[in-house]
């Protein structure tokens, strides 16, 4: 028996060899996996540990200011106070008192007394659970009363503190809203593209957007070593932000103010250019909005109000609003006819108030007709029949060739975002767009600036500049330091002068369409009226107590383009007034006042109430 036992023991002990091998295998697996983690994937995990350890805090650069040409500040920065919370202290007390954080007095006071958005606060506290020492921004741009509340409740607000920051401000509010634009918080997309840190401000529209790179400056950062809870342990590295560049614009404050005043209660836009350089002197779109709503984050209420407004205050009509040019287009048709030698300026056409073409009758705006009409009279009195004939001789594509040449149907290249191209129709365009041929009758309509053609006020301001400076296109610009670009179209001066002289007649000739509305004593203004008709069948007429009421939405838009002084033009203007009826009545006086204001500013117009 003992021998047997001895044998059994020896046999068992042999198994220990196997156990040794299993142990070896187990350790080999551990070492092998360790090799995988530390040697093969070591750099990857090292990177992850650095990412854990280092937290980068952005330092936002002060944004460049924007000035008008005289140094008035159109956009600046001012110190604001932001509210932060370090959630740790709140959580700690909640744990002690065994209450959820939304029942803690700090939370209740912040929501009820200081007016912090409850959802935003909750969201931040939830995010703060993992790293409770990271400060969370809970309210931006505190008001004075909020600041006072925070100060007086300080003893009860755990882990809450106020920090100073810079916020954009537009001192003139609505006045420059469309042209200067506004800044807002970067979108998540921007952050994901690694261009910006969250919380940074970028230009969203206007000059703020177009020159964002220049104005923004170069962001800096500070990297800190943090622990797992988000405590900052020690600074690691820092990059100092570079201040954004200031932008000096070509705008003129008094002119812009005048524009706003003139558009009080009206919808439309005005662009005033220096016709020799393309510098934008004034650019105003009405109605406007307060850009100061945006930098601190616009409230949902305000955002909805702005977007639901039927008058679309957020649209910059001066560059994005497109309208048929109406009779203003006759300038283009006249120049095309002259240059193409399809038009003899002295040849007279008899206007009887209407013209038969095919089986349709095309009417002149003057029912009784203009009688014998040459080019001068055709422009001065804006005779439709005269231009039906010119258009008929030229054909659509030849007119469009000149329209394109004169800058219509394409962007002018102004240094603003969201510029519209407008439409200059051609046969090809219509086939593509409507899958239909161009009807000859449409050419007649086109010749008086109605139908498919669509232009922006800035395009017509450039067109006006073209006639003002005697033959070259300018690129409108707002940056005072931008180089002046002139595009000589090579159209013979004598043709341009013929049209120019007729434009003078529009205002100076006693039969001119704008004679009674745009004439200014002591200064010779040249111009052209226009009425943009919105497709007539959409005019909805209602009768009420016997009066015909034209529903405003479908009424006619009034145009007036002008330049002055006639001999040596200093300003070119394009004005559009939506629902303004005929161009001469509502748009022309605005242009006149703008011109007067500018010439007064230039010292060319002495009398205060000249022309009135």
């Amino acid at each position, binding site marked *: 028996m003992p021998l047997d036992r001895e044998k059994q023991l020896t046999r068992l002990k042999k198994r*220990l060899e196997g156990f040794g091998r299993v142990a070896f295998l187990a350790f080999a697996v551990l070492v092998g996996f360790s090799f995988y983690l530390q040697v093969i994937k*070591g750099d990857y995990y*090292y990177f992850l*540990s650095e990412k854990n*350890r280092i937290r980068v805090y952005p330092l936002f650069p002060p944004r460049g200011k924007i000035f008008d040409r005289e140094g008035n500040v159109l956009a600046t920065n001012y110190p604001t106070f932001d509210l932060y919370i370090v959630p740790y202290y709140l959580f700690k007390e909640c744990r002690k008192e065994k209450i959820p954080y939304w029942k803690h007095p700090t939370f209740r006071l912040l929501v009820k007394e200081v007016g912090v958005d409850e959802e935003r606060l909750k969201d931040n506290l939830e995010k703060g659970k993992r790293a409770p020492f990271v400060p969370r921004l809970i309210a931006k741009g505190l008001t004075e009363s909020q600041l006072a509340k925070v100060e007086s409740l300080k003893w009860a607000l755990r882990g809450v503190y106020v920090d100073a920051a810079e916020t954009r401000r537009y001192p003139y509010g609505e006045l420059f809203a469309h042209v200067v634009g506004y800044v807002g918080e970067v979108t998540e997309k921007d952050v994901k593209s690694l261009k910006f840190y969250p919380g940074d401000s970028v230009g969203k529209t206007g000059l703020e957007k177009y020159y964002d790179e220049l104005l923004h400056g170069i962001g800096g950062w500070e990297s800190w070593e943090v622990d797992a809870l988000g405590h900052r342990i020690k600074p690691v590295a820092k990059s100092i932000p570079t201040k954004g560049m200031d932008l000096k614009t070509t705008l003129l404050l008094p002119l812009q103010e005048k524009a706003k005043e003139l558009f009080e209660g009206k919808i439309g836009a005005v662009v005033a250019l220096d016709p020799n350089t393309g510098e934008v002197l004034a650019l105003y779109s009405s109605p406007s909005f307060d850009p100061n709503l945006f930098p601190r984050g616009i409230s949902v209420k305000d955002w909805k109000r702005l977007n639901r407004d039927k008058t679309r205050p957020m649209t910059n009509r001066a560059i994005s609003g497109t309208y048929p040019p109406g009779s203003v287009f006759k300038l283009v048709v006249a120049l095309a006819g002259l240059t193409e030698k399809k038009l003899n300026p002295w040849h007279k056409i008899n206007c009887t108030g209407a013209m038969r073409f095919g089986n349709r009758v095309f009417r002149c705006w003057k029912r009784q007709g203009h009688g014998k009409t040459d080019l001068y009279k055709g422009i001065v009195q804006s005779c439709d029949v005269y231009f039906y004939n010119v258009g008929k001789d030229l054909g659509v594509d030849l007119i469009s060739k000149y329209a394109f040449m004169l800058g219509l149907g394409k962007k002018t290249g102004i240094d603003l975002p969201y510029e519209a191209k407008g439409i200059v129709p051609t046969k090809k365009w219509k086939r593509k767009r409507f899958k239909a041929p161009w009807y000859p009758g449409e050419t007649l309509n086109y010749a008086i600036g109605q139908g498919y053609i669509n232009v922006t006020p800035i395009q017509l301001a450039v067109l006006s500049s073209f006639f003002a400076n005697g033959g070259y296109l300018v690129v409108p610009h707002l940056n005072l330091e931008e180089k002046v670009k002139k595009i000589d179209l090579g159209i013979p001066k004598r043709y341009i002068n013929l049209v120019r002289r007729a434009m003078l007649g529009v205002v100076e000739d006693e039969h001119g369409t704008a004679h009674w509305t745009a004439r200014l004593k002591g200064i010779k203004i040249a111009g052209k009226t226009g009425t943009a008709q919105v497709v007539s069948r959409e005019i909805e007429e209602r009768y009420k107590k016997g009066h015909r009421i034209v529903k405003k939405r479908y009424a006619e838009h009034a145009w007036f383009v002008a330049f002055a002084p006639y001999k040596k033009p200093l300003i070119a203007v394009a004005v559009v007034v939506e629902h303004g009826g005929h161009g001469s009545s509502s748009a022309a006086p605005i242009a006149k006042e703008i011109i007067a204001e500018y010439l007064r500013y230039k010292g060319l117009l002495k009398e205060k109430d000249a022309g009135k």
Partner: protein
Amino acid sequence: MRVNKGILSKRLDLGVVFVFFLISAIGLFTLAGIYEGSIFLKRQILWHVIGIAAFLGVLSFDRKFFREWVWFFYIGAIALLIMVLIVGKVGKGAQRWIIIGPFRLQPSEFAKIALALALGSVFEHFSVKGRIPLGLREVLIVGAVCLPFFILTAMQPDLGTALIFVLVAATVSFFAGIKRGTLVLCLLFAFVVAFVGWNHLKPYQKNRIIAFLDPKKDPYRTGYHIIQSRIAIGSGRLWGKGYMKGTQSRLNFIPEKHTDFIFPTFAEDWGFIGVCVLLFLYFVFITRIIEICKRAKNPYALYTTVALGAIFFWHIVINVGMTMGLLPVVGVPLPLMSYGGSATVASYITLGLILVMVRE
């Protein structure tokens, strides 16, 4: 004096003791690097002193004493485990400690030893009666011996320790040999238990297992420990970040960096080279114990030493495996490295018992 002479006589394997102390020294050194001059290091040194006293105490008895009193230890351990459930201190979602004055006693650490001793006795009985390899009846007996421990620790709940009980019993059973049919039956039973058990796990335990299977699913909750632990180990690269330079541990990204997750702390500072050295020492330690087992003169000593050695082996493998993300996170300390009084003292006692069992 005679006793002491016996204790330190050449018949003891001093090699394993040397490795034991070497690893303990590395453990203390690592702890010293975590909290400079902190209370943990001082306390751990105290545990080692108490441990050495317990070690010498164990050596002053002979194996017959433990064999005779085995059921006393067994019942005592069960009593302590029941006490934990009644008066135990709740910590980290589980009741694991009994407060005795300034100390917190974790009875489950000592229960492992009691179980090993009990298993030694049971298997001796089997071997004397010629009931080896084990049939179904024997396996059921072994299961019955484990069951109180398993249930009582699982109720704390301390799944890691409960698992260790099962693994130790399984190791000894495999060592003794199991009949093929019984083995198949056992495996089937294990599957059923695993399936039913899953539905009775606490949410955090389920989460741990889910996190182990897919740590990246929710890196800030369940997978957080595993991911941070892996980052710590991996970021040590070949040469390590240097002593006390490990950012994952210094900045508290590793949870439980001085107890269950001390291995990542060490691996981050010393890199793959350090890990190789440490794991080599542990391997030597285990192989030394296997060598010692071979010196056993009777079945009782042999089975007991295997059971005691299995405690060390499974602790090491499970702890290192879980910190690397190879195994689910269960709260099992790394012997001789992890901070903890009960575990440290228990390790000394375990080693002492191993030496006592094979002493001539």
